[in-house]
């Protein structure tokens, strides 16, 4: 079991949990957290390099490092692992954000409990990304969700009880649909009469075969269940309302992890389960969800325009950006899907950066109302510059990650849309692509509005003049994220290739991609 490198993505956080449980003071806890998250980053880089080596050597299996250990044998539940480029990208993202998150919560109250929950959350996240078994995946998914309740409830601010409960219940509501969908998939995983399976790869390998895939009638039922199930976590309109409240109340590191990684679970799940396993229904039903996600893209952006609480603004912007992820996935077009994954990476990093900065600013000014702040550039130039960079990434400045992700999505979606339009299949995709494109303008509006009010202009509150700029751990946290954002923005083709190569031809043959 331990010969497989992937299993260490779960083992290391578990060791961290054990380590933190044994820690006696805050220094040890920090040491464990930082060491562990560095180890995770190293591990993901190692996996990445090995993966690229194997691919370069001509390995064509849809997933590499696959392995499977029997768990609940009678139910065919295995602990099956495997990664492709997408999962590796997600693993990288997660480890980086865990790292940055550890630094962002350097001075948290009750550090032991906080880190315990935080790392339990990351166990779920990493587990989710490495497994290819629906049951195990679902289990890790829920493991990742529940620590949020306590993290927000105990360490949050504002209406934390309400928000924590709402977030947990809505997400669990999504996972209720999801559970139904997953069990349904299991029961129809092998209509030809063979052994049923939870294994994604196995089901996917049959997805292109009309005889052996999940029966089409059932796909039409199970696809919405799974898509909505994951979509709730992906903040799909109209199931996004947990996001503003939840983020507003969450402590810094939790917002970072939640927006940065956890919301990606939704997009990843939609892709990996809903689309990957049920391409037929995806094609038939995508228009419903296209409308919903297309709405979320502009809707989130419009809502962000008038909010005055920094976290609300950012949460709505997340709704918009994550909507774009789901939107692109639904385009069923390789380019758009690549863009979706890039957008996940990009949004993960820059939102984490945003939330880290907001947390740092809030930690100093004790308010998140942009109307009560101003001219922070004069007071805390470092944080303000970082904020501008994050904003620029968010509004899609070339050279930062947002641009490449959005452009890939738009190009892909436009191709899908035009193909539909010229093929006489209606112009829905085209119209929604153009609507989604509009978000770049609206994004600019709300980002610049915040930057203008918050950072520029005269100092609003004289008490703020005495505030200090970022500490070293805060700098480390933000610099890490900015570097990653810039890395994606400057060398997108590396990530593009990493993701692009993994779209299994077997699946996309069905979609005509």
């Amino acid at each position: 079991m331990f010969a497989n490198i992937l299993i260490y993505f779960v083992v290391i956080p578990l060791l961290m949990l054990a380590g933190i449980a044994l820690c006696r003071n805050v220094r040890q806890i920090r040491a464990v957290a930082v060491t562990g998250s560095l180890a995770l980053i190293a591990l993901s880089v190692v996996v990445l390099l090995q993966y690229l080596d194997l691919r370069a050597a001509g390995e064509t299996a849809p997933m590499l490092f696959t392995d499977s250990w029997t768990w609940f044998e009678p139910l065919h539940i295995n602990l099956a692992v495997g990664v492709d480029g997408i999962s590796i990208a997600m693993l990288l993202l997660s480890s980086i954000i865990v790292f940055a998150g550890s630094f962002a919560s350097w001075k948290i109250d009750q550090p032991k409990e906080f880190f315990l929950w935080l790392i339990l959350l990351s166990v779920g996240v990493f587990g989710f990304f490495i497994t290819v078994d629906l049951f195990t995946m679902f289990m890790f998914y829920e493991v990742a969700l529940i620590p949020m309740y306590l993290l927000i409830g105990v360490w949050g601010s504002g209406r934390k009880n309400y928000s924590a409960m709402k977030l947990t219940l809505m997400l669990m509501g999504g996972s209720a649909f999801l559970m139904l969908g997953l069990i349904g998939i299991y029961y129809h995983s092998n209509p030809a009469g063979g052994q049923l399976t939870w294994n994604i790869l196995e089901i996917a390998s049959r997805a292109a075969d009309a005889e052996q895939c999940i029966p089409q009638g059932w796909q039409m039922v199970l696809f919405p269940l799974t898509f909505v199930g994951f979509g709730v976590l992906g903040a799909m309109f109209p199931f996004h309302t947990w996001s503003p409240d939840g983020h507003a109340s969450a402590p810094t590191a939790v917002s970072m992890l939640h927006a940065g990684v956890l919301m990606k679970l939704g997009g990843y799940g939609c892709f990996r389960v809903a689309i990957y396993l049920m391409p037929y229904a995806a094609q038939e039903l995508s228009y419903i969800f296209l409308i919903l996600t297309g709405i979320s893209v502009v809707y989130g952006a419009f809502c962000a325009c008038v909010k005055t609480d920094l976290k609300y603004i950012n949460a709505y912007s997340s709704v918009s950006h994550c909507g774009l992820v789901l939107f692109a996935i639904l385009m069923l077009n390789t380019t758009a899907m690549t863009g979706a994954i890039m957008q996940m990476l990009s949004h993960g990093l820059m939102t984490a950066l945003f939330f880290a900065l907001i947390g740092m600013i809030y930690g100093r000014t004790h308010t998140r109302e942009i109307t009560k702040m101003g001219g922070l550039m004069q007071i805390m130039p470092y944080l303000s510059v970082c904020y501008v960079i994050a904003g620029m990434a968010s509004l899609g400045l070339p050279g930062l990650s947002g641009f490449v992700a959005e452009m890939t999505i738009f190009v892909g979606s436009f191709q899908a849309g035009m193909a539909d339009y010229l093929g006489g299949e209606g112009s829905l995709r085209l119209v929604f692509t153009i609507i989604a494109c509009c978000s770049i303008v609206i994004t600019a509006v709300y980002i610049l509005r915040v930057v203008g009010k918050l950072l520029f202009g005269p100092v609003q509150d004289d008490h703020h003049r005495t505030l200090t700029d970022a500490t070293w751990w805060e700098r480390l946290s933000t610099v890490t994220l900015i570097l990653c954002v810039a890395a994606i923005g400057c060398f997108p083709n590396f990530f593009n290739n990493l993701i692009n190569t993994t779209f299994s031809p077997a699946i996309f043959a069905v979609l005509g991609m």
Partner: protein
Amino acid sequence: MDVTVPILILAIPLFMFLLLGLTGMKMSHKLAGTLGTLGMGTVLVLAYVTAFTYFFGGAPEFIDAAGNRLQYLVFDQTWLAFTQNLVIKIGFLLDPISAMMLVVITTISFMVHLYSLGYMRDHHGVYEHGFQRFYAFLSLFSFSMLGLVVAPNIFQMYIFWELVGASSYLLIGFYYRKPSAVSASKKAFIVTRFADLGFLIGILVLSYYTGTFNFTDFTSSAVAGMEGVTQVNIHTAEGILNIFQSSPAPMFMGASVLTWALVLIFMGGMGKSAMLPLHIWLPDAMEGPTPVSALIHAATMVVAGVYLVARLFPLYLMEESALMIITVVGALTALYAAMVACTQVDIKRVLAFSTISQIAFMMVSLGVARMDIHHGLGYMASMFHLFTHAMFKALLFLGAGALIHAIGSNDYTDMHGLRKYMPITHITFLIGCLAIAGIIPFSGFFSKDEILSSCLGNSTIAYVWMSAVAGLTAFYMFRLYYLIFWWKEHKVHEGHHAPHDQPWVMSLPLIILAVISCVAGFIPFGNLVSWNGVPYDFMAHFNWSVAAVSLVVAIAGIALATVMYRKENELPAKFKNAVPALWRWCHHRFYWDELYMFITHRIIFGCICRPLAWFDRHIIDGTMDSFATITNKASDAIKPLQSGQVQMYVWYYLIGALALGGITYICLL
């Protein structure tokens, strides 16, 4: 050609940006400024070398045996591959217009770098706050602008297009403590961003049909036997037109899809080049430091729109309706801006409107250009005007900067009669005014004259219209000139030193630019730049009657200005009272800003954003909350069930059991 030089041209400003941006605050002001200027100087030299090699080196990849200018792709690196064909590459395309732009950009940029060493400190030699940041941003801008002009594909252009937008944003908002600067920068970014949306969609449409982003694939054909060398060829554009026309749906809403694509791309250009109705950001952009206005908002960035259209010009030739739109937009903008410029008080705004008007000239020039009208003279005229305008407008702005630096105010009402105090500025400014007014032999005369010739070739209306605008240009520029340097005597306020000329770092650029403005008109531009690379000797086609008319018009404009503004008199007020409505509309810029305010605040914010936010909180979220409320209500509603009375318990028990049986029975019936 060696790739090191082109790479250095792009790399040095980028490096300077990173260096100054990351470590600038730790450097002394002087060091940062010097480093930035030296860096730009190096780039200037490299760019000159490159341009010189291109134009006069005579290498076979630059010019063919027949003397036609070729396009040469110096390098092209894959940056992001969307699909097999749609690949964003970062490359360096050398052709007449990019070489010309390299010269323009590096020249102006270097001048501005130099000039700012003096401008960005006060009279006591104290550097402005954020001086290092200023140089970092200037470097960033130079990098972006250079990247833009050498882009071999439309997506690279879009990338750098966005980057220049961002650097413009940063520089306009340089004085970030001033709310007006902040809002101006925001406005500039958002308006251009809106235009970029059109640009983006245009790119998407174009690239979808053609399967490529490369400019050369749209407009040029490969030259046999040479890697990366192409020549502009109208047949390629015709091929593109065919692709569009043979698609299943060649028309969309009454216009051809190609027209749509081109107009959408032009929309991007309208935003950047401040064409009506997307011009509103440019006057406000004057909140930035004056050197920035000279560099970005007069000479380089704002002409990107013109450059974009010029890049795709063969494609535009395929769709006359698109060119028509460009002409109309340009013509309207030119007149509008000129009229507004006549009434502004802030000297930088006058210059800003004049910039808008002049860019509109270039646009019109492109719009009226046809292959059969003097072999596409309009294209060449436009590029020529771009070149000359960059020089004299930078000169004017830097001159204005000198004035502002000396006076500490933007309004001419605070100036008047400065000619004695600031002779260098006075002379150079006058040269600039003469150039823009189109007085022979200053550079503006030649370029404007060709534009008018081109217009005449296309339609008389355009010609008359543009000539009138040219007259107006002469009028408002001299109005400005007189109001600053003549009119009544300047009064030195108490506690102020008398204004005086600037240090050499500021004067030197003025002088250099003034010299260029004087002589640039004699450059045989047609030999260097033409739409298809075929040399075009415009002196041979020089239309003397047009030249004479335009000269007359210009002089008339100047004369009128002289009459009205040379000395303090009643005429301006009389004029104002004679046409009060016109004057008011002009003075308020025809209320465009108010209209935009209304649209953004009332319609977008008031009718979309706020209701949506309300809807989200109360309807969507309310629905989610109502699930909880309903659950609680239901819990309350069934509370009586658990009354604590055993007899009620058994009653429910019995009724439950009976109902279970009874209902099942009824259902089975």
